[in-house]
């Protein structure tokens, strides 16, 4: 069982490094960074407590929101998905990404206290 899991993972990693374009890997790196930040915040909350609960929520939701928006951007600029997003060019996707982030940041800063 574990053998098959390891083989799947290694295969996946191999395909990833060869097949995905650089642009997408840049975005993936960004997503990974967001993920780590969110996970670390959650760990702090588990260990130390939820004292400024609103701040924890603001930070955590910021990470979650940024991750989701990043995923959306990645989907939209992936050339393999061009058929699904005919009317949305790459620049348009990026502009949407920026606008959504502005709103997200506004809400997060409001909530952070």
């Amino acid at each position, binding site marked *: 069982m574990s053998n098959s899991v390891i083989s799947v993972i290694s295969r996946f990693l191999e395909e990833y490094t060869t097949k995905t374009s*650089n642009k997408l*890997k*840049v975005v993936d*790196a*960004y997503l*990974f*960074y967001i993920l*780590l*930040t969110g996970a*670390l*915040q959650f760990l*702090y909350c588990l260990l*130390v*407590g939820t*004292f400024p609960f609103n701040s924890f929520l603001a930070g955590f939701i910021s990470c979650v929101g940024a991750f989701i928006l990043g995923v959306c951007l990645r989907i939209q600029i992936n050339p393999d998905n061009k058929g699904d997003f005919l009317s949305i*060019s*790459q*620049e*348009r996707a*990026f*502009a949407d990404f*920026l606008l959504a982030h*502005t709103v997200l*940041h*506004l809400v997060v*800063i*409001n909530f*952070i206290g």
Partner: protein
Amino acid sequence: MIYLYIIGVDMAQPRVFCLVLLTVALGAQALTPSHHLSLSDVERLKGLLSQPFTDLASAYYSIVGLSKLGAAVADENDACQFLKAQLDPMSVDSLFFAAEASQAIADCEMPVSNETRDILLAAVSEDSTVTQIFRAVSALSSLGLPLASQEVVAALVARIAKEDNVLAITTALQTATRLSQQAELGGILEEIEDLAARLDDLGGVYLQFEEGLEATALFVTAAYTLSDHADTEPPLKEDQVIQLVNSVFSKKSWDSRSEAFSVACAAAALSSNRFHVPVIVSTQGPATVSHSQPILHLLVTDILSNPLASANLLVESAQAVASKSVVLSQAPFSLRDGIFELNFMASQPASGYYQFTVAVTGDSRLVANQVELKVKVSTEVAVTNMDLSVVDKDQSIGTKTSRVDYPFKAKGSFTADSHQNFAMNFQLVDANTGVELTPHQTFVRFHNQKTGQEVVFVAEPDSKNLYKFELDTAERKSEFDSMSGTYVLHLIVGDATLENPILWNVADVVLKFLDEEAPAAIQSKTLYMPKPDIQHLFREPEKKPPTVVSNTFTALVLSPFLLLLILWFKLGANISNFSLSPSSVLFHVGHACMLGLMYVYWTHLNMFQTLKYLAIIGSLTFLAGNRMLAQKAVKRIAAEQSSRLAKYRSLR
């Protein structure tokens, strides 16, 4: 009331039985007048009417009103001159006032002329108001001028049909009293009953017109004057008469002369008519008898507080309120100097309250002649067989009993500690008859002279009416606050029916308690002293984790950013494609400003200000970004096209 008559029947005397039946047949009255004019009220009424008059109307009210009360104006000659001077022979009202008033004064004649007669006769017609007809008819009759009664009746009947209000009909009734007895007064007499139906019943106690006191009083006067004149009993039931009395005489200070006049007329009518005379039975002073004052005095008067000439007073029954036994039955009062007397103590009643039912007889006109009174019999109390003793709880040592006589104090003091009880036995008897009494208040009071403490207990009688009081020192120590010391003992006896309440210093008692709280000398309850201040506790801030931990985690959370930079560097991300066109520069600057605005929002601004700045910067950034991205798009599409073209060319 009914059960009193049943007890009367139990007496098994045929005469009593007949009287009982008769009284029941007449209808046992529950209603007696609650208001009448006392002598001071009559004086006040006369005073109001005696005030100096300024015009004919006030002169009329004063002169005639006073004559109804049996009094006269201060200076009759002056009054007569005033009337003659003020008279206006052309006015019906003026003639009415002057004529009526002059009738009440002896030797006062108003000048009469043919013109006067013509004017007055002309006023008697269907076209004048009822008041005008009344005044004309009264003036004619007072001045001794002839008038046609039948014409007047016809005019009145016609006017009543048109003016259907209470005052008009009352005035019509009054007019009918001046007409000849041969005239057809039947129709007008019926109006009394119709008017009586219009009276408002207030709580079963008052009966009055909504037009007020004056209208009610004038109605009473008119009804009885007309009934006397026509020799027909007025269709008013006895209860209604009493209720009318209550309404008319409940007001003891009158607003105007005309109101006082109407009350005076009503009082005169009710005290001297041929059919209904309400009688008032009242006590002279408080209704109390005792051995020193054994006689009960009652006054029987009419509503003007004049004693009734031919009245006999009889006690139908006197029943003790507590035991419901009948003490006296069918005993007559004796009349002395206008006051009815009865020696109640001759029946040797026990002390307490008695319900008397008295009846006034002697005149068939009397209304409300059955009255209920509450009479108190008071007596003096004596304390006998007062025994004080200190009883040991386990009864190993014999009790020490000493007898104390009232009003002396016990010679020695009594000591009781926690193993002993202090006991008191005594009897309360009626000083005159020797019967045992149970007064309402029998208290035993302990007073500590030093600390000012006062503890009061109630002494209770047992089934044989012997009073016992026992103080268990251990059980009662909380009442004494465990203060040992000498307590002065008082016995307090009181009751409403006792003439000599008792406050007797019986003895000194030394009480010894365990667990004495020595320091507090005066243990007065600190109920009303200021309480300790409450300090406000502000909400404590929540516990924060130590700064070290927070700082560590801050560094930890920021560390993935380094990782991101490293990854990007490894992937070869660069900014070599950065075109220095104004729109892209502006876009980046604007974007940086927006991020900076976020920080400033966190520290300084509120949402509204932020949105304002964001709108400005955002729109600039948007325009610049739009431009920049469009340029980028164009470049990308051109690059794609050229690469595709190159691929196509290479394939060929």
